[in-house]
């Protein structure tokens, strides 16, 4: 499903970034970086519009011919960015939302780990396994 998953800190540096296949890593790093602008735009736009409930799920950030980029932001302004293959049209919004929810839960677990310092790169194996389960697909 997902080809690349990234967790970006509040200050916009990556806490965790992983992509398959590994050769395309640089391209995905660049994609995630450019999508951060869109995330910031959405977050500030939502702040100005007088909505009572702001959603954590940001939705489709932008599509290209090869893939689509989705975003999600937590209460502590940590962003999750997910890049999915466009050829996989079977993915519905609900599934993306549930993937983000799983990411958020795993991230919360990492945060509550007393051996983890907020702001460090994420090395947790449990988090790795959860991400792998979301990325391993028909290759």
């Amino acid at each position, binding site marked *: 499903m997902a080809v690349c998953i990234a967790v970006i800190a*509040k200050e916009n540096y990556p806490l965790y970034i992983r992509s398959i296949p590994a050769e395309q890593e640089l391209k995905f790093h660049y994609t995630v970086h450019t999508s951060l602008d869109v995330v910031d735009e959405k977050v500030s736009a*939502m*702040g100005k519009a007088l909505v*009572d*409930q*702001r*959603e*954590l799920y940001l939705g489709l950030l932008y599509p290209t011919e090869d893939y689509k980029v989705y975003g999600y*932001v*937590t*209460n*502590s*302004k940590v962003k999750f960015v997910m890049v999915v293959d466009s050829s996989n049209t079977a993915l519905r919004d609900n599934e993306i939302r549930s993937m983000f929810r799983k990411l958020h839960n795993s*991230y*919360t677990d990492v*945060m*509550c780990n*007393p051996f983890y310092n*907020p702001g460090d790169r994420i090395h947790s194996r449990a988090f790795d396994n959860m991400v792998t389960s979301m990325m391993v697909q028909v290759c």
Partner: protein
Amino acid sequence: MPAMADETLFQLLHTQVVAAAYGAGRGSGDEGLRAGLTVLEGMGFRVGQGLAERLPQGALAFREELDTIKFLCRDLWGAVFGKQTDNLRTNHQGTYILQDNNFPFLTQMAWGQQYLEEAPKFLAFTCGLLRGTLSSLGIESSVTASVTSLPACKFQVVIQKA
């Protein structure tokens, strides 16, 4: 399903944490007292950061500072202590006073003035907790606590202006 012993366990653990922060000869004199308070506050800060991720149920609904402080009074206090704060006051200039007339960490001690000197040790962790949660939600602050008569206490939150 919440276990029924949760609150008691947390109180007992907290009592031990305070004792440990002052044990092993660290607690003597003013220097020792301040060092212990710093350790406890630091612990609370880290826990607050984790709590800030777990607690808010799904919505970025805090449009103003006041909403965030109200969230602290209701949801954080409810999750950690099983009750809400009794009073919230503000001067609308960035200072908030959260008052709890029956603070769970102080109820087990003799009510009144007898343990006024020891009380700050039992409030340091909670001060850090508030500061950590606020910091994760994007608000830098400084939190202090004051007691005039157990078990009522006040937490003063001062928001740092950028």
